[in-house]
């Protein structure tokens, strides 16, 4: 007998389609360009900046922007331009790692609470709720002391602080997923809960997780910068932007605006770039 039906759509995998859609999204491309710029700066910046970003020249401190120092010099006479360029390194390590941690943790939590619901959900939700009521800065303060100040601590703090938010997104997606019949079908194959959560449901909630993760990355940059600003985690002499703003912001009143402005703008561009990406991804998944 003849073929009864043939497959309708083009045989492109969803991933390839997503990539193609991202390639078409101007928002995404703009964001990716900005991010790429900063990644390149982080990786290779120190080879092409005019000055060693760590070398002090204390006698020439706080010079305004000039041909010699495009962005001026800071309190220790270091070249602000060189520092800003290289300064993306820490934030671009810490923020993505924190986001990954948050995503992994949050996804696991979300899967568990969403899939089991009931008592498990209630207990975990209460703990999460309690945790969320503590301002991140306080959590950071405790963690820095407990774990010692290090980038690892910052990653942990932000990862922990963000995981409930991701868990919430995942949970609501899972709540909808678990009612779908393929879950019942899996049960009818005697699959265990672990397999159903991670093997069956997880792949289907990846798109919202992906979107949430990119959005979170933006917030992670926010948080890393803020924690540096509050003086946690990233250690001097790192040219980290948040740290620089934190040590210099008192000087804007004295007219030394260049010590904070460029770092602030750098944070702003990175954040905007990541958000363009997030928006592009969300849009591409929507189509």
């Amino acid at each position, binding site marked *: 007998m003849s073929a009864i039906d043939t497959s309708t759509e083009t045989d492109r995998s969803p991933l390839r389609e997503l990539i193609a859609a991202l390639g078409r999204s101007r928002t995404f491309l703009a964001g990716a360009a900005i991010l790429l710029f900063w990644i390149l700066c982080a990786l290779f910046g120190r080879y092409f900046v005019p000055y060693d970003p760590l070398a*002090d020249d*204390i*006698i020439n401190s*706080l010079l305004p922007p000039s041909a010699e120092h495009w962005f001026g010099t800071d*309190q*220790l006479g270091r070249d602000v331009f060189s520092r800003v360029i290289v300064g993306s390194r820490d934030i671009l390590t810490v923020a993505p790692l924190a986001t990954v941690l948050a995503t992994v943790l949050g996804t696991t939590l979300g899967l568990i609470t969403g899939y089991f619901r009931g008592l498990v959900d209630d207990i975990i939700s209460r703990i999460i709720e309690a945790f969320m009521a503590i301002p991140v800065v306080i959590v950071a303060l405790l963690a820095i002391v407990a774990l010692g100040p290090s980038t690892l601590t910052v990653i942990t703090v932000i990862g922990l602080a963000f995981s409930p938010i991701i868990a919430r997104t995942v949970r609501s997606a899972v709540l909808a997923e678990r009612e779908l019949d393929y879950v019942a079908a899996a049960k009818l194959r005697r699959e265990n809960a672990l397999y159903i959560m991670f093997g069956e449901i997880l792949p289907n909630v990846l798109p919202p997780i992906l979107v949430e993760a990119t959005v979170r990355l933006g917030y992670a940059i926010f948080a890393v910068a803020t924690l540096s600003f509050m003086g946690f985690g990233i250690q*001097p*002499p790192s040219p980290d932007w948040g740290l620089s703003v934190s040590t210099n912001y*008192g000087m804007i009143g*004295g007219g030394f605006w260049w010590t904070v402005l460029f770092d602030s703008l750098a944070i702003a561009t990175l954040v905007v770039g990541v958000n363009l990406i997030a928006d592009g991804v969300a849009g591409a998944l929507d189509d």
Partner: protein
Amino acid sequence: PGPARAQGAGGVLRVAVDTPTGAIDPVKTPDVGGLVMLQQSGEFLCMDGQDLVLRPMLAESWKPNDKGDVWTFKLRKGVKFHNGKEMTADDVAASLNRLADPANGSNALSVFKGVLSKDAVRKVDDLTVEFHLDAPNANFPYLVSSDNYNAIILPADYAGDFEKNFVGTGPFKLEKYTPKVGASFVRNDDYWGDKALLDRVEFTFFADIQPQILALQGNQVDLINQLPVLAGAGLLNDPNVEIISIHSASHYQIHMRTDMDPFKDPRVRRAVALSLDRDKLVKGLLRGRAQPGNDSPFAPVYPSTDTSVEQRKQNIAEAKQLLEAAGIKSGTKVPLATQRFQEVPQYAQLVQNAAKEIGIEIELNVMDSGAYYGDAVFGKSTWLDSVMGITDYGHRGVPNVYLSAPLRSDGSWNAAHFKNKEYDTLAAGYVAALDLEAQKAAAGKIQKLLLEETPIIFGYFYDHLSAVRKGVAGVEPTAMSQTFLARASKK
């Protein structure tokens, strides 16, 4: 005061100070914000001025016995507390005994330790008190002067509730105190001396220096009580602002654990000390508002400092030699812990860069001050346990405390774990030396010994800065960060 009064009489002065960290209580208060509050309405037996020479305040005169272990203070007559009671020797004895009593949680206890014990202050008559010291101490009056900011004279029946009414004897009395927000004082018209010029003083508390600077620029305050030079760089050239600068003995100590590698060998410690360019530090980091240190607590401001001892200068070649001799390989890593306080982190980074030049890789760990000090006892404190650290030491009118606690073998703040019998003897000798010449002689020996051993690097002694808006006159800050406003006026 006459003319000043005529033109600038009255008015309100607005002062920015750091938020006191706790209740205001002369017995306990440890912090700058708190001590400024104490000292507005409270007074000391004597006043340590900018020249480090004591002037009478509530005491009119004082003298030691021959040995120097009993000091007799004559008190001023007619001094009234703000509650109307007359101040007598009872009040003075009670106030200082209270501070010397370990049961009271007194913050001055560490100053009086080994000097003045509980009940060692005795009333002789209504206007005379005697201090019976544990050991001879030539500089004892400094310990009951404004230098010891806890040594406020309070009524004998003080019940620990200073914050309610701020009863003291000073030129201002409390109008209102709101914790964490601010305080205001008004002129005390019953004051024993010249009455204050200002009608009122308003203090506003700030959590941070930066907002204080913005507030000064925004004309929301007239005076910043204490201005770290780096943060205040913008104000140094501000035409609307005047900087009051006082030389002081305040400094940052870079300690190196003499009992741990790589600093067991004094040559390594000296090498690190030699890597620093102190002149540049003073000129660049401190914008000239400091004096170079010579790796001993004998700051240039102290009259007893032996200035003939040669100043240590940067010498990279020598430093490298020393390291080589000590067998330290280039690239040796050393952790450096320190506190986030004023320009300490910047100083730490400069030290790091300097050490890099002689091949020592310093890894910085800048932390919250609370975390750095920890429990402040050996074994439970980064400060006291770290291989290398930088610690802020506030000004003292005499170097006695600096000579003992951080450096003596049994010193409770001996972060360098420096144990040297010869030093201990020399330091005790200095404390007991009654006249300046004897002190100078002792100081010289100590300075040389410390240059050789270098358990602690004293890179510079920084000036105390206050910032006032143009038109404010007569503000009298001390290197202790107190601010005396009795003579202040505002145009």
